[in-house]
Each structure stands twice: as structure tokens, then as C-alpha cells.
């Protein structure tokens, strides 16, 4: 059931032909915004303005921007802890994302979740999940609810190449195929899970996505550096989900430029600098899409510089917003634990919920 309808490289499908000039510029801008947001966040992380982990998405931008650009008002997104790219791609503001990293009350999660736990249900973005593979049953569940409610949408559920080895993911694949759920699992295969290469972590024949065969599920594997190609190939799966409510397992090959997280002490040990440089110089999704748009005469080099500059300014403004924002109050620690308590309902009046003495 390896259902590739177009061969790789055939990127000018109808779905891409429908893009207006303005659409294309927006897609490039979105990738620049992610890149600059993250580089700025890294700078302030290193200045000690945030705590915990910071998992950067740089190098993978065409995957989030390309796939999410295909979504409509009934479609949903859920991902793992490397979640800033998806968050910005669904339309979350740099301000709320940066403020979350700074642990401020104005953050998307009020400073409670941090880098790994961004949420925006109003944008149908269901997190930001820190436990590897933990989001994969939720993706099936979102698709289950869509189907139950007869909503013709789908859920894109992202995971890493390391996450495919969590039991919960295998159970999810079986459930999705058995119940015919409109979920699209997207393995963002950047070749490594922390310091472990794909070869050292997974047993497979030709690809990771091929595991879908065992569940009689449609699947596809492709390179994710060209945004047009990402849209083209992902749209096939989205169409299938919306029209026939069938799941798909996609494996999109990509690369992360930075270490696993900023705390990755071995970031330059398990990969050669030649390998990293090769991706940066020859496979960078921003450069590749910029080149395509220059060739199409959608914009000029000067326009691209303008987009880049605007993205940097927006990121710096987000830092200023985050710095000026207040911290949560100490009393906020005990809010947002129970819905009934937060809403002071009848149900919350019986018994004790908290045990601070």
C-alpha cells in the first residue's frame, strides 16, 4: 500500500499551483520567522533568561510550514517537545511563545509549560508534549473525535525517528488503522534521537514508515527540504484522511542543525561537522525555497532580505515583550489543576482538592 501518486521531484502539483504569489511569500516568511525566533531564543537562553530545555527546530522548517499550510479549519495539529516551529506555523504569536520560554504569565501556557509544552487549542494546536511518543495516542484520539462528530477534518501528529520505538506509537498505529481514523502520523526523521543514529535505534527494512505495512496502512517516505515537495506529498495523505477517513504514516527526511537540545553536551561528537555543514549549505529549506521563488520571480533578493530583517525584528520585539511581562503569581501555582475548581462549580464544593498545610 505504498501509495505515492507522484514521483519525487514532481513538485508542481495542483496543490502548489493554487498558491498565489502572496501565499508563497507568506510561506517563506513563516520559515524565516521560525528560524529567527529560535536563534533569538537561543541567545537569551544562553544569557540565562530561561530554564529547562530548549530543543531547536532549525533545519526542519519546511516540514512544519509545508504540512501545516495545507490545513483548513477542521484540521488539527499535535507534536512532541520540539514544538516551536509548529506553534508559529499554526499562527501562534512570537510574543506568547517567547514569553512562555521566559516563564512569564503572558506566555501561551501562562509560564506553566515551558519550551516543550506549548498549547493553543484555539488554533487547533494540541501541544507540545515532553514524553517521547506520548502525543501519538492523542493524535489518534483527536481523529477519533473528528470522525465521531462527523467533522471532515484530520489530525497531523508529529513524532521523531526515535519516538517510533515507543510502544504507545505501535498501539496507536493499530488503533488508527483498525478504526480507520483520519490521523496522519508524520515522522520527522532528522536521523538522530539525541546521540543515537537511526541505524542504532531502529530495526527496519527499507524505511521507518514501512512499518505501516504491518498495519495495512498507507505510507510514504520523502525528503523534506523542499517546501513544495512537502506540500505535494502530504496533501495526498490529507485528502485521503478527509475523504475516506483513512490514516497515513509519512516519513519526512530532514535534519536538525543544533544539538538535541541546548544542553546536548555531545552535539558535535555523534555527527561530523561535514555532515552538518552539508545540510546547512546544500539542503537548507529556507535557501531552497528562496531560490525557487527567485527563479519564479515571485520576489527579489532584496525582498528576501526584507523578510529576514522583519523576522529578526519581530523576534527581538518578542523578547522585549517577554522581558516586560510579569511572572505568574505564587498563587497561580495552584490554579489550572482542576477545571471544576478553577470555575468554582458545584462539583468543586465537596471535599478537598489540595493538601498544602
Amino acid at each position, binding site marked *: 500500500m505504498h501509495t505515492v501518486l507522484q514521483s519525487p521531484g514532481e513538485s508542481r502539483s495542483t496543490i502548489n499551483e493554487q498558491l498565489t504569489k502572496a501565499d508563497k511569500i507568506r510561506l517563506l516568511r513563516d520559515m524565516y520567522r521560525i528560524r529567527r525566533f529560535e536563534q533569538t531564543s537561543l541567545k537569551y537562553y544562553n544569557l540565562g533568561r530561561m530554564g529547562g530545555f530548549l530543543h531547536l527546530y532549525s533545519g526542519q522548517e519546511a516540514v512544519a510550514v509545508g504540512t501545516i499550510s495545507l490545513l483548513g479549519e477542521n484540521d488539527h495539529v499535535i507534536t512532541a517537545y520540539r514544538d516551536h516551529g509548529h506553534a508559529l506555523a499554526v499562527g501562534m504569536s512570537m510574543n506568547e511563545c517567547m514569553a512562555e520560554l521566559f*516563564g512569564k504569565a503572558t506566555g501561551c501556557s501562562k*509560564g506553566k509549560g515551558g519550551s516543550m509544552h506549548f498549547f493553543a487549542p484555539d488554533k487547533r494546536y494540541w501541544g507540545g508534549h515532553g514524553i517521547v511518543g506520548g502525543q501519538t495516542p492523542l493524535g489518534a484520539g483527536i481523529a477519533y473525535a473528528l470522525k465521531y462528530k462527523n467533522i471532515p477534518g484530520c489530525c497531523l501528529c508529529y513524532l521523531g525517528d*526515535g519516538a517510533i520505538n515507543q510502544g504507545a506509537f505501535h498501539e496507536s498505529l493499530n488503533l488508527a488503522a483498525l478504526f480507520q481514523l483520519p490521523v496522519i502520523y508524520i515522522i520527522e526523521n532528522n536521523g538522530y534521537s539525541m546521540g*543515537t543514529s537511526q541505524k542504532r535505534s531502529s530495526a527496519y527494512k527499507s524505511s521507518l514508515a514501512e512499518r505501516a505495512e504491518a498495519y495495512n496502512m498507507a505510507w510514504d517516505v520523502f525528503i523534506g527540504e523542499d517546501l513544495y515537495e512537502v506540500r505535494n506529498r502530504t496533501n495526498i495523505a490529507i485528502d485521503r484522511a478527509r475523504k475516506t477517513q483513512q490514516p497515513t504514516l509519512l516519513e519526512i527526511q530532514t535534519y536538525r542543525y543544533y544539538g538535541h537540545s541546548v544542553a546536548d*553536551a555531545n552535539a558535535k561528537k555523534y555527527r561530523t561537522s561535514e555532515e552538518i555543514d552539508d545540510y546547512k549549505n546544500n539542503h537548507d529549506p529556507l535557501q531552497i525555497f528562496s531560490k525557487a521563488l527567485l527563479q519564479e520571480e515571485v520576489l527579489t533578493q532584496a525582498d528576501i532580505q526584507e523578510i529576514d530583517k522583519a523576522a529578526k525584528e519581530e523576534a527581538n520585539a518578542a523578547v522585549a515583550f517577554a522581558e516586560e511581562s510579569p511572572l505568574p503569581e505564587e498563587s497561580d501555582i495552584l490554579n489550572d489543576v482542576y477545571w471544576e475548581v478553577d470555575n468554582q462549580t458545584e462539583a468543586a464544593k465537596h471535599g478537598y482538592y489540595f493538601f498544602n498545610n
Partner: protein
Amino acid sequence: MALLTYREALRTALDEEILRDENVVVIGEEVAQYNGAYKVTEGLWAAHGDKRLVDTPISEAGFVGMGIGASMLGLRPVIELMFWSFAYVAFDQIVNNAGCVRYMSGGLLNVPIVIRGPANGGTNVGATHSHTPENLLANMPGLKVVAPATAYDAKGLLKTSIRDNDPVMFMENTLLYGEKWEVPDTEYLIPLGQADVKRVGRDISLIAHGRAVLTCLKAAELLAAEHDIDAEVVDLRSIRPLDEETVITSVRKTHRAVVVEEGKPFCGIGAQLVSTIQEKAFDDLDAPIGRVASLDAPAIYSPPLEKRQLPDPQRVIEKVLHLS
């Protein structure tokens, strides 16, 4: 005596036990080639090779269960969890298999496994990564639970845990890995179930485990300096088995107690201690037993707020003053 970090103490314990017993094998994510996510196993793969240090995929249920199965045939696997928070995807293996097979087989089997890794808050990694499940695990008869507070204890307890014939859940703390303590150069073991009085005092017993012991020691210094209160600090070291005698002896002497933990209060270790003390030393108490725990919500990310959520010396002192 050498000054070793908590991390180095754990590492030397692993190193010595790997050399001592060919059945000891260290299994987990990034433990070998990467040298350990928190560098506890640094250098061990280079020294002992692929057979003794095994890198795994991110499959906790699988490799924890594999370790349990292997231990039934006499291996002594030491399973590293990058965080104890990730044990939850392997909970069935730990609770039903490690915890129950001996009982269900009428004593035919035993499970000499150690599952170790950090279990702590305070590093701003959010709710999913900040769990402290020692109370959950100690609630399961069949499992043992250990939580060292110093490098000395970490080494002695880990060596004992590896030699123990039952499953031992070994709770470390990322905030302690880099802290240094005196550790003897010669071999020593610390029995499980033996608490340690880390500071002798007359007026009140502060009872804790793990990093909360250090919080209590700081609080005790301040209580002595600023309030003329001489606190005794009892480090449980092992939670199950629990050294009730040392706890009760201390309370009989001081007549007051505050139990301190970094876990959440409901059904916490402190709750168990309070129950034990009131039952066995009720007549010796001059005041209700105080409890200090983390504020009762999932771990908040915001760094300054997370500091407030965890017990600190100030909260311990306030509780003590309230009882005195």
C-alpha cells in the same frame, strides 16, 4: 578519602560492580556511546565495552521489561532511566512484573534488578519531566525504594542495591550530580533500611530523604544561628525498607518532628512517617507533627515559581517555628 561528586560516586559503584560480577549489565538510553545523558556512565563503555553497557532505543517498557526478564535468569541488570519521569511508560513492567512475579510464583522467582535515574524537580523542565515517584513505588509491596542524598550514600547504596536480590528503585537527583562529598577509597556497602542521622540535635527532628535532607541541614544551621533551636536531621536513605527505629528514637529524644519531602503531599512519604510516628511515639510528642512538601500541583515551568513550589529552608524553618 577522596572528594567525589555524586555522579562520580555512582560511576565508581557501577564500575566496581561491573568488574566484580560478570552478570552486571548497564542498559538504557545513551548510557554507552554518548557517556550517559547526565554523564553518570561516562567512560564505562570505553572501559567495559558493548556487552556491559548497552544503548537502547527509546522503548522504556521494552528495555525495563527485558531487564526484569533477564534478571529472572540471574543477570543483574542496572537499568538507567534518563529521568524517573519516563518510568510511567514502563509502569506495568515495574509494578506487575518486577513487583509481583515473586509473590505470584509463591517465591519461586526473584528479580535482582536495579532501576536508577534522577527523580527530582527544580530544573524547570516542566510537569512531564519533574516527577518524584518514590511514594508511588514504595506503595507497591515487592519493590524496594532508595534515595541517597550524598555521594557517600549514593555509592554505598548503589553497590548494595546491585547485590540485592530484589528489585530496587534507585532515585537520584540531577541537582546533586555535580555536588561533592568525601568518599572512602576503600570498598564499603550501606545496608538498605538503615537511616542516617546527618546532624545530631536536641529540640526537633527533621526527617527527609534525597535532596530534602540538604534543605533540612541548611534549615538546621539557620535555626541554630538565628533561633537557638537545635534540630536533628534524619536522612532515611532507604524508603522501603524503612528504618523506623532511627526515626522513632530521634522523635523520642526531641519530642517534635517535621517531615520534609520534595514530592507532593497526598499519600507522600511524609504521610507514612507521620502515621508511624503517631502510632509508635504518640506519648513522646509535644506538638503535632509538621509536614513540608512541594506545593500540591503539577510542576510549574516558570523558573522563579518552581523555586517557590519546592520546599526550601525557609519553609522548613517556618514550620518548625510554628510548632515550637
